[in-house]
């Protein structure tokens, strides 16, 4: 073993960018677990009816799905330590059927949970600082962010600092735990938006102003589902000190004036739509003017303390170009292909951020087995300061890998079936669980994702096609973000028969747009053909370097429609 490897041998202290709980935080979640254990006991003994128990179990992330209870665990802003990842693997092995499902909200779900086991699972997770609080219900949900936070070369402000502040602020918020509807906040700190802030109830873009001051651009009222809307700009620049006061003001206006008469009209997007962004801004500003003061001021000392948790890890001083990497690329086309799709430029010379695709050909998007989770934990310890991210594309990320280490990392990933060279490509399909598991679903989504992924099994073909996002939901709740896919697929129920509506031209980036319907819904057996036809037309018609979206924008939906209904008829 060379000395460099020895120095990088993991220890708990080496975990970069993890907000560590202290004794009080631990006491807090342990008490929550004990309270839930007692509630489950009362339910199992018959002292509580399902009506009484349901809100209590939902407050602890426990849903009832098609085949079993489903437990959703919060992964705050998608960041995990290797120790936490091992705990997730343990839960999958001991209490589930050996796997977990990473979601588009950067959380993990277990599909085969027994009610009687739930308290023990939560206790096991509490021991590593994890919980299921606020993963359901009409409260402020897990705050999400850029999976490359603290690593990306294009980052301006590290969003994790503020995501952690928002996590703390929103935890068991006394005023905002019974909102008209669930409330999702996303924050990005880069010019390129990888956190999809336009489709969240509140989207925040952290920016830096004169003298390095941090401020925030705030968008409100984005969201998918039955009535999709992109967020509207509520404020250009909210100074750091006012962030919490501003959010309190928005939430207070929403809590009082958001609709509660109709579940489909209760999200803040409908309030924005009905009263108008200008009137809402007036109300928020009025409210903010009243509450402005020391009580809601975000103290710079607090920000500094939290920022220290996210200090950059001990990077080595390395040359920008790694000869070992270049050599490996030249020698192995498969490796070279993987580096083209699965690496993101790092701000630190000699490092890269690695996307571990959970989308092998024919696989279930976002699923990982216990063994895979443990393998990723070990690789994180060895190569990335013991830290792992979950992306909203349902992949995993090792954010800080030395370029010199990439060939070895890739080989090890391959041993665990984790080396799919398709991040951001057509095989990197986002898919919700759909009718195979979800009690709300209209139609299946996973087997279609598997089907499509097999059609594009040829990785060279995927690379030739280039970046292209397919997103699929099993019902209008849009957990698979179908509205904002280059190609979006939505399951609808036509008299008990699964049918699918296809859209094209959506995106969740800084140029956010909603997809447009291509034509009449198609049957289960036609979906993969339709997708192939759409991609084929794109390849035929695209100009030099033109993305799928640009092609749709240039030639319109019509040619795609003709291609499909010629092909699928």
């Amino acid at each position, binding site marked *: 073993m060379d000395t460099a490897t020895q120095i990088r041998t993991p220890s708990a202290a080496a975990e970069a960018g993890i907000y560590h709980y202290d004794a009080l935080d631990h006491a807090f979640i342990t008490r929550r677990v004990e309270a839930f254990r007692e509630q489950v006991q009362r*339910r199992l003994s018959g002292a509580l009816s399902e009506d009484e128990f349901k809100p209590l179990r939902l407050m602890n992330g426990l849903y*009832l*799905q098609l085949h*079993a*209870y489903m437990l959703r665990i919060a992964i705050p802003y998608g960041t995990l330590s290797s120790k936490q990842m091992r705990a997730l693997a343990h839960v999958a092995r001991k209490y589930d059927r050996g796997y977990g499902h990473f979601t588009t909200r950067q959380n993990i779900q277990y599909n*085969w*949970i027994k*009610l009687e086991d739930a308290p023990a699972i939560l206790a096991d997770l509490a021991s590593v600082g994890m919980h299921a609080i606020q993963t359901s219900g009409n409260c402020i949900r897990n705050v999400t962010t850029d999976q490359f936070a603290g690593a990306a070369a294009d980052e301006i402000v590290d969003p994790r600092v503020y995501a952690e502040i928002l996590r703390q602020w929103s935890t068991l918020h006394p005023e905002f735990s019974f909102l008209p509807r669930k409330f999702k906040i996303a924050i990005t700190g880069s010019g390129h938006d990888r956190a999809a802030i336009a489709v969240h109830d509140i989207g925040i873009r952290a920016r830096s102003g004169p003298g390095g001051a941090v401020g925030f651009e705030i968008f409100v009222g984005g969201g998918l589902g039955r009535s999709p809307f992109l967020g509207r700009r509520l404020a250009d620049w909210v100074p750091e000190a006012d962030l919490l006061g501003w959010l309190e003001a928005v939430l207070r206006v929403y809590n009082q004036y958001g609709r509660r008469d109709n579940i489909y009209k209760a999200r803040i997007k409908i309030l924005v739509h009905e009263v108008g962004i200008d009137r809402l801004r007036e109300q928020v500003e009025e409210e903010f003017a009243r509450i402005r003061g020391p009580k809601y001021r975000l103290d710079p000392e607090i920000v500094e303390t939290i920022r220290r948790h996210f200090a950059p890890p001990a990077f080595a001083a390395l040359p920008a170009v790694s000869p070992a990497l270049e050599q490996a690329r030249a020698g192995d086309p498969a490796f070279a292909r993987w580096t083209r799709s699965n690496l993101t430029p790092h701000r630190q010379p000699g490092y890269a951020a690695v996307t571990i695709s959970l989308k092998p050909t024919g696989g279930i998007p976002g699923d990982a087995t216990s063994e895979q989770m443990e393998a990723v934990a070990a690789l994180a310890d060895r190569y990335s300061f013991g830290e792992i991210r979950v992306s909203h594309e349902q992949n995993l990320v090792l954010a800080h890998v030395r370029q010199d280490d990439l060939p070895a990392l890739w080989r090890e990933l391959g041993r665990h079936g984790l080396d799919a060279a398709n991040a951001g490509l057509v095989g990197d399909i986002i898919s919700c669980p759909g009718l195979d598991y979800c009690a709300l679903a209209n139609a299946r989504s996973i087997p279609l994702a*598997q089907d499509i992924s097999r059609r594009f099994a040829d990785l060279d073909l995927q690379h030739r096609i280039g970046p292209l996002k397919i997103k699929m939901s099993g019902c209008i709740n849009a957990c698979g973000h179908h509205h904002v896919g280059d190609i979006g697929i939505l399951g609808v129920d036509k008299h*008990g028969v699964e049918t699918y509506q296809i859209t094209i031209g959506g995106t969740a980036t800084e140029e956010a747009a909603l997809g447009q319907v291509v034509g009449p819904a198609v049957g289960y057996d036609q979906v993969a053909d339709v997708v192939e036809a759409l991609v084929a037309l794109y390849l035929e018609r695209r100009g030099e370097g033109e993305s799928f979206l640009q092609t749709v924008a240039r030639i319109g939906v019509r040619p795609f429609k003709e291609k499909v209904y010629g092909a699928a008829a």
Partner: protein
Amino acid sequence: MKLFVVTATNLRDGAIRWLGAGNIWQPLLANAQPFDAAGIVPALAFGAAEISAQRVIGVYQVEVRRAPDGLDPLSTRERIRAFGPTVHPEFSYAPATSGLGV
């Protein structure tokens, strides 16, 4: 003649149950008791009593047909409940009577 069975979810583990002969909850649809439109009424009443007894939740009726190798629900959703998720053959409850793309 329309045929129905009664289904529910077991409280303790969330597993799917089908009402079988002698009012016994069965894990497999194959062991469910089919009823006609009149017969389903007392069966659903029994199910409601089982909810009150805190043994099961979510009792309802499912329309089925007789297929060559057993009962087969009409809707895709109920077929997935009866035979298991279509994406993990190793988790299926029973061979799907006429296949769900597994």
